[in-house]
């Protein structure tokens, strides 16, 4: 061991640079960022219309819904869990908010109620996962069906439209030239970044995914934080659902079909280990953007939607194959 310290003193300069480079490469954000840049550049070269302010802002807005859901999903996956119920929870919260407004409740109250229901639904997931100790994938698979069913029952299967004008601001408004869904997304990411990187709760979320038993035995109240994580996931899904409802000015019971899979793809492509414990929220945002850019670029190129699915799936496989080397 004595030798190690000596060499360290001798070659500190070069060692520091090497370490910095190594740390960069090991950062979970490294590969997602490279992937994003590559796809961005390719799309810009292939399409003339891609690199316009209008188009880029469109991409960001389209991505915002999935990106917001992916925040809660990142937390769930970091603890070693998963939340499949986010798509239907979006629909449930969105339709409920719409329904309450139609029933005459003020916009703010309806939005709050929608968020609350999403959070409560997530907390229900959390109770089963954290306290009944059931596997997250099974719990949320079951509640996925329940949430979708509730949304369909509530709406009778029909979209709820005719929403008050004041509600449109959330999905269509602008502040400082920034579309509101993008702004909401950025705020959510900043809050999530602080939560995960700067607070004890974030540290516990990583610790639970890294080694749940060690965390529990050293006195971390694991169940409590798992409950919190699923509640957060329900909350971000609800927020996404409400933003989407406002964008469409219609509460759709069939909104968000398959969104859980897009969110999971963004999280995993973003460098979060599916087993939990490692990952970064910034990576999720970058990957969500990358998927959005890919989508948009393929659309601009006139690639048929069916073909797009195949290309997207292939790129996800390839990306994860490349980033796999990071774990070694």
């Amino acid at each position, binding site marked *: 061991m004595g030798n*190690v310290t000596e060499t360290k003193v001798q070659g500190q300069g070069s060692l520091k640079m090497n370490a910095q480079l190594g740390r960069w490469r090991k950062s979970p954000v490294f590969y997602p960022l490279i992937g994003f840049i590559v796809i961005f550049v390719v799309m810009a070269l292939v399409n003339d219309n891609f690199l316009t302010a209008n188009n880029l802002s469109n991409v960001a807005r389209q991505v915002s819904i999935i990106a917001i859901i992916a925040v809660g999903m990142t937390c769930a996956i970091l603890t070693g869990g998963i939340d499949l119920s986010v798509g239907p929870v979006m629909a449930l919260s969105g339709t409920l908010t719409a329904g309450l407004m139609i029933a005459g409740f003020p916009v703010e109250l309806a939005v709050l109620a929608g968020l609350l229901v999403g959070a409560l639904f997530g907390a229900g997931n959390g109770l089963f996962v954290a306290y009944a100790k059931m596997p997250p994938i099974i719990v949320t698979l079951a509640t996925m069906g329940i949430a979708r069913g509730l949304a369909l029952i509530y709406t009778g299967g029909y979209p709820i439209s005719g929403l008050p004008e004041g509600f449109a601001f959330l999905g269509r408004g602008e502040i400082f030239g920034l579309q509101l869904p993008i702004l909401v997304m950025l705020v959510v990411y900043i809050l999530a970044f*602080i939560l995960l990187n700067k607070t004890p709760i974030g540290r516990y979320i990583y*610790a639970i995914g890294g*080694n749940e038993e060690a965390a529990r*035995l*050293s*006195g971390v109240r694991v169940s409590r934080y798992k409950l919190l994580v699923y509640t957060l996931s329900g909350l971000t899904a609800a927020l996404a659902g409400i933003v989407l409802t406002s964008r469409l000015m219609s509460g759709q019971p069939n909104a968000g079909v398959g969104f859980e899979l897009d969110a999971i793809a963004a999280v995993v492509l973003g460098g979060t280990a599916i087993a939990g414990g*490692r990952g970064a929220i910034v990576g999720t945002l970058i990957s969500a953007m990358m998927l959005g850019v890919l989508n948009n670029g393929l659309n601009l190129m006139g690639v048929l939607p069916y073909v797009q699915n195949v290309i997207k799936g292939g790129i996800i496989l390839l990306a994860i194959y490349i980033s796999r080397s990071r774990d070694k």
Partner: protein
Amino acid sequence: MSSLLTLDHISKSFPGVKALTDISLQLREGEIHALLGENGAGKSTLMKILCGIYSPDAGSIAIDGKEQHFHTYHDAIKAGVGIIFQEFSLIPYLTATENIFLGREITNRFGMLDSTSMSKKAEALFQRLGVTIDLTEPVSHLSVAEQQFVEIAKALSLEARILVLDEPTATLTPSEADHLFNIMRELKSQGVGMIFISHHMDEIYEICDRITVLRDGCLVGECEVRSTDVDDLVEMMVGRKIENNFPPKALHTTSEVVIDVRAIQLTREAPVNSFTLHRGEILGFAGLVGSGRTKLALGLLGATPVHRKDVLVNGRAESLKSPADALNCGIGLLPESRKTEGLVLPFSIRENITLNNLAKHCDVGFIINRSHEGQVVDDLMRKVRVKAPDHECPVGNLSGGNQQKVVIARWLNHNCKVLIFDEPTRGIDVGAKAEIYRLMRALTNQGISIIMISSELPEVVGVSDRVAVFRQGRIVKTLAGDAVDSSNIIRYATGGA
């Protein structure tokens, strides 16, 4: 005698570390060869090279004089090398037979599994070992020792002529270990060459023919067991004489009771136990493996549910429903298995140390102050002498002893009053052990009380002020003062008294 296996001038480096330098080792037919060295001496690296997991930078491997190049584990198996790792590679839900033939099942002419002939072959294998095992039970129902026998049978079924046993006795009871030794003797008579890794000198003297000693990745020497005594071996391992591992015991123990366990009963059928822990003492929990020491500790801490618990901490009744509750009362646990229960491996040293006391490092109530956290961690690392480049180093890169020190530092950060050390020196080398003992004693001198669960008798005797001896889930005797000696403990632990 012919040389079955020759490792010739093997060297291996990892980025920044020279793991092995010029190691040679010869294994003869029917020989049991001990590989000895402190943790981090290079034993595992050498064995991983032998079984094709790593490839050497220099040097060669020869079997029966023929040079071999192993690129994968499968190459090594094909060449007749079998390794019994500490962590078993059995599939828990399959039977012994199914495990043995996994991946190369025997089929009949319709392509269906031929279970009759597989069972017969498996029976023959176990006969060769001289062991009877229920071949129809899932291996998860077998004891650890039996699972190990299944691993050995599996290796033999692959026609292994070279068998590596990596600390096979670490999880066995003494009688199970004896059984293993009988099997090894049987295999020896059949000409199988074995490399045996163990930290227990008595085992090496009981079963081995020759010893190769490694230190810091270099070959220190090779000797016949018969002509070498223990002190020489230890000196070869650590490069210095270790006279006394144990620090002096507490000068005067107080009668001030910190924890008064008036009654604890794990299940309705389990015996009711009671004991007290005094301020500034080390209370040893001795007993055979499986005598209920760890279960009692986990129950006390609230990590596992118990049937009945009546505990006073500093004179106040506490329910201790979870480890977090215990922490609030100032009681901490250093678990038996550091990697699976103690440390969050993807985390750095810093994150592991502050894991359960982040509130202490927060500004504005909830934002972690990194620089304060780092300073505290650096202080603690100096205090317990963790050897690492800096506090951002992942704990997975540390040696066992240093990992244990990180866990100790975590509790020091918390100002705990009571620490429960479960097998504090398992898998830790001799030098680091002495350091851990000194640390424990330094803690008790500051008024902290320690419960130490240990299966190593010299450790229990050398470190404890008092010893509670367990047998079949019951504290049968509490020894104090001069009564703390090996023969007393063994008598009570085995029911010989």
